């Protein structure tokens, strides 16, 4: 190429002498002139495109499936590869031609089609039509060349590592060509090495690892040795750039692999009939908490008590996690403001020893809310969840039926399914806004204390057959209608509503006594 440059240099410099010398300066077209030329060029192009399009659509409606159709659609698609109708038409034509030709001719036909698609992908590498058509062509091709297709994907991904069309297509190719898991893992190694902010690669890794070392009974587990390597990889990523979330997400997935969050719960359900004669029946059902079944469906069972079995961590696993906690703490020392690090530490602490780390966890939550104010409510909810879990743990050990969560800054209620035997619950001095519908699960509840919150909604106080006493001092109950659900609690006799805006309602006492005739001790 240099040769050419130089030879032209010689001729052009001689040429230029005659061009420029008399004039001194080069005359250049003005921008208006240029724009005008561009506009004309555009118009011409548009005209050609529209006439070709009309011709093609006419041919299609006439049902013509010939070479000319291929030729015409080719012209149009190479300037606009996103014209899905044309790809459809092309497929029709190809299917027709396929029936007329010999096998090796068909091979040639489809190979030239692949070349054409490649050209279209250069126009728009994110064209749905192109990628879809390419997949289709490969299914029709008598002898598909998967190595070439893999090469194409590699080139495409090196230009744009986040092109999800290409990722999708690549998965098809890998599946069809039977590339080994090891090779694919190396492929992700390479991509992550060149830029580790790449969710696609990390995610792909997470699907490959379990296949690489399958464990007999746990299809989604990764063997320990590989896990350690993966921990190291993600350490490198988040120590290099702790604000990059892709590695953190992967890391949390990895931690999940180790801890085995999918705890199988053996639930002992005690059923109580709605009728006045309680009849206990015991049934055992198994459910997986990992499926998101935190809230058990109460079918026709009114009382459902679960005895939650926590799987104890093996010694090796807890030592691995302990080491992970240490390296995260190390990072936190360097980056005290990093939210990903804080959050991961909290999760690790919970996995290791939720009660022992409670104090630190709370402090970390406080920092999190400060450094990431946009998500402070999320953190409050998460913190509430953890506090409730901790309280449940303690309760389990003590086997008490009185449950107290007062003054813990709770913003939300959860895990109520594990409190089904509780008779006395104290939620005072929190920041609860409502008693959610699944609060109605607490069928054994007799006394509810929820003073000093910001509760405005009581829809969860519904059909609680044993509820006798409710204290809702200093909350935000405004309307009489908010209290309507209480009417379904037939044993309710004591109700404290002091310090709520509702007391300003006219005739409140008479209205209330009408709504809740059984309540004898009403404080307003």
């Amino acid at each position, binding site marked *: *190429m*240099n*040769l*050419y*440059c*130089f*030879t*032209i*240099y*010689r*001729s*052009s*410099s001689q*040429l*230029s*002498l*005659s*061009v*420029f*010398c008399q*004039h*001194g*300066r*080069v*005359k*250049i*077209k003005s921008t208006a002139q*240029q724009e005008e030329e561009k506009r004309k060029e555009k118009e011409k192009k548009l005209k050609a495109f529209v006439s070709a399009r009309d011709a093609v659509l006419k041919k299609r409606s006439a049902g013509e499936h010939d070479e000319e159709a291929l030729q015409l659609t080719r012209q149009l698609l190479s300037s606009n590869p996103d014209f899905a109708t044309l790809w459809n038409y092309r497929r029709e034509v190809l299917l027709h031609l396929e029936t007329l030709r010999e096998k090796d001719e068909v091979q040639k036909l489809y190979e030239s089609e692949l070349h054409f698609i490649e050209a279209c992908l250069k126009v728009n590498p994110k064209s749905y039509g192109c990628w879809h058509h390419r997949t289709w062509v490969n299914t029709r091709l008598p002898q598909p060349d998967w190595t070439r297709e893999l090469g194409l994907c590699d080139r495409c991904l090196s230009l744009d590592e986040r092109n999800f069309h290409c990722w999708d297509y690549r998965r098809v190719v890998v599946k069809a060509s039977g590339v080994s898991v090891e090779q694919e893992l190396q492929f992700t190694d390479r991509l992550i*090495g*060149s*830029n*580790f902010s790449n969710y696609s690669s990390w995610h792909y890794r997470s699907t490959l690892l379990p296949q690489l070392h399958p464990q007999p009974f746990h299809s989604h587990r990764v063997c320990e040795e590989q896990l350690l390597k993966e921990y190291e990889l993600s*350490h*490198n*990523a988040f*120590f*290099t*750039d*702790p604000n990059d979330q892709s590695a953190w997400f992967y890391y949390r997935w990895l931690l999940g692999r180790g801890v085995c969050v999918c705890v199988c719960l053996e639930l002992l359900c005690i059923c109580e009939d709605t009728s006045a004669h309680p009849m206990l029946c015991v049934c055992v059902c198994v459910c997986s908490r990992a499926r998101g079944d935190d809230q058990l469906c109460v079918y026709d069972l009114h009382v459902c008590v679960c005895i939650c079995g926590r799987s104890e961590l093996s010694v090796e696993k807890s030592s691995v996690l302990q080491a992970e906690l240490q*390296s995260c703490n*190390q*990072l936190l020392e*360097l*980056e005290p403001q990093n939210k990903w690090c804080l959050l991961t530490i909290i999760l690790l602490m919970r996995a290791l020893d939720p009660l022992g780390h409670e104090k630190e966890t709370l402090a970390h939550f406080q920092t999190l809310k400060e450094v990431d104010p946009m998500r402070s409510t999320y953190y409050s909810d998460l913190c509430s969840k953890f506090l409730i879990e901790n309280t449940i743990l303690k309760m389990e050990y003590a086997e008490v039926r009185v449950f107290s969560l007062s003054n813990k800054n709770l913003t939300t209620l959860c895990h109520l399914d594990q409190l089904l035997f509780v008779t006395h619950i104290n939620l005072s001095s929190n920041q609860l806004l409502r008693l959610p519908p699944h609060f109605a699960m607490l069928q054994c509840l007799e006394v509810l204390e929820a003073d000093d919150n910001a509760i405005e909604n009581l829809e969860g106080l519904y059909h609680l057959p044993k509820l006798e006493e409710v204290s809702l001092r200093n909350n935000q109950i405004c309307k009489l209608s908010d209290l309507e659900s209480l009417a379904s609690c037939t044993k309710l006799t004591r109700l404290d509503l002091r310090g709520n805006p509702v007391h300003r309602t006219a005739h409140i006492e008479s209205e209330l006594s009408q709504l809740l005739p059984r309540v004898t001790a009403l404080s307003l």
Partner: protein
Amino acid sequence: MAAEDLPSQFDVVILGTGLTESVIAAACSRVGQSVLHLDRRNYYAGNWASFTFNGLLSWIEQYKNQQEVQITELEQVWRSLIDEGEDAVPLSALDSSISNLEVFCYASEEEEKEEEMKTPLSSFQPVNAETVSEEANGDSTEAHDTVTGDDTTASDAKTPNEEHEVSEPKEDQHTSDISEPSQSQEEKESQLSSSPADPPVEVQKKITYQKLVKEGRRFNIDLVSKLMYSRGALVDLLIKSNVSRYAEFKNIGRILTYRNGKVEQVPCSRADVFASKQLTVVEKRMLMKFLTFCLDFEQHPEEYQDYTEKPFREFLKNKKLTENLQHFILHSIAMVTQHTLTEEGLKATQHFLRCLGRYGNTPFLFPLYGLGEIPQCFCRMCAVFGGIYCLRHSVECLVVDKVSNKVKAVIDTRGQRISCSHFVVEDSYIRDEQRQSTAYRQISRAVLITDRSVLPSESDQQISMVTIPPLESSAPAVRMVELCSSSMTCMPGTYLVHLTCSSSGKAQEDLAPVISQLFHVSTIPGEEPSEGAEERSKPAVLWVMYFNMRDTSALDSSSYSLPSNVHVCTGPDDSLCSDYSIKLAESVFHHILPDEEFCPPAPNPEDIIYDGDGPQAEGPGFDESTNTEADKSLAEEEGNSEPAEMDSVTQQAPLDMTPASEE
């Protein structure tokens, strides 16, 4: 020799085709000035030039012959052209900017002595050829002594200001070969190519000297070794002026450093830090944190204000960075000395970081076919806009108007008087009489051809930049660039290594210790013929050249007693980038044409309006990049060109391009 060949009137006459002069030429021509661009050499780019291996051998030959060149007395011719009221200021005919040139060859010699006598180039290494063979016999010390003995006598006898007299130690060996200084390059080349007529027997994959000569056209050996910061002044200018279309570039693949006797990769980009195996995760975090801080350090003055008067090194220590990291930052990223102040160090780091990622994982680019391409690209732009070029054509003297004390004309080496309103000249053309000060610095250079990379890796086609901190506290830091064959600067299977440092003595004294640390040099005294595995892990040096180049970058207009419309361009400086030369070009340009823009973008060929019908009908204009058809046809017209040997053109083209015919 017809004087009518050149017009007798130009706006600007430029003497010397180095980078600065070429940029000025392009800038002036671009805004419509008529430019005459001359060089006394037969190649472009002066001390910025790149040579094929054979071209370099000729250049070495020329250097050695220089002292014997008779200065032809043209004085009488030009005396008659000086009118009354005018003064003549003669220019220097000798270039003394290169000194202490020494060449050693370690590649094995297949041919016998007989062959050597036929070849002019064998003159450089008979002694070395002997040492090699003696080395093989285990008797190396004696041979080495002869070499060093000559060296010391040579250096003792000469003072630095007489560099051009400092001669090759083995001079007596090749007097017979210095036949006629006028021998043209073509003739030599034909001799060179004919010499290995009987093809050397290919033994293993060993690269012989004959092979280097035979493949000599694949080399493009730069006299100056610099890289381009991807956001530096040169890259900006190339982009702004559209000159970049005349060249191609390659990324520097990695930054290496020499530390604790080992070559290590310096993690500088995010991907490097992530992938680095030598850093602990905590170090990774500290490094990234520090680099992130450097990117906008001006925003956090509280971090460094206590250290503004103290060295950068102390600041790094205070930041509690580990030894590892301090080394990387100080020597390889900021590339500053132990004494550089904090703010300067931070700025250097910041510049490095800002250049990352623009074109790749390191901040540097290198022009394919060598740095010598760049001045030629600017010359080309100048020619496209009407500049006229003559090589082997210099200026004898300046004609100065006594009243205004301004140059009004120059008299060229052919005795033609050419009037001009500005005269731009490279420093090496200035006689000592016109200098106020002659205190130059020197740059020490070494060029090596080696057989493998200093740090082999998966890809053997990477350009590496290696920073070597001072081996002793008094020694200068050495910068090394290792070029692979895909950079089009050396033959496949070899690496071209450039070492550069500011001189504290002769180039060989400055650089040989570093070379012996990093490479396997077969004449090291006391080395066992049966090499240990450690020795063999180092790349072997096949050929090495040392020289000093004068660094005049510290001089400014007050250093010369010259008329005000004479603008002196100093030569290459010792820094890694060319920013100094570009800034100088810009300031000279604004001196000449205060109201004009410096190198505005060249218009696209299709946007140029051609007056008259002639040139337009003739076709391709200068739109070579898009029209491959035209390229081919033009190349075919060339007839004698050999498409396979692209590199040959660098050598041929400058000769052919001289508009004034030689006949």
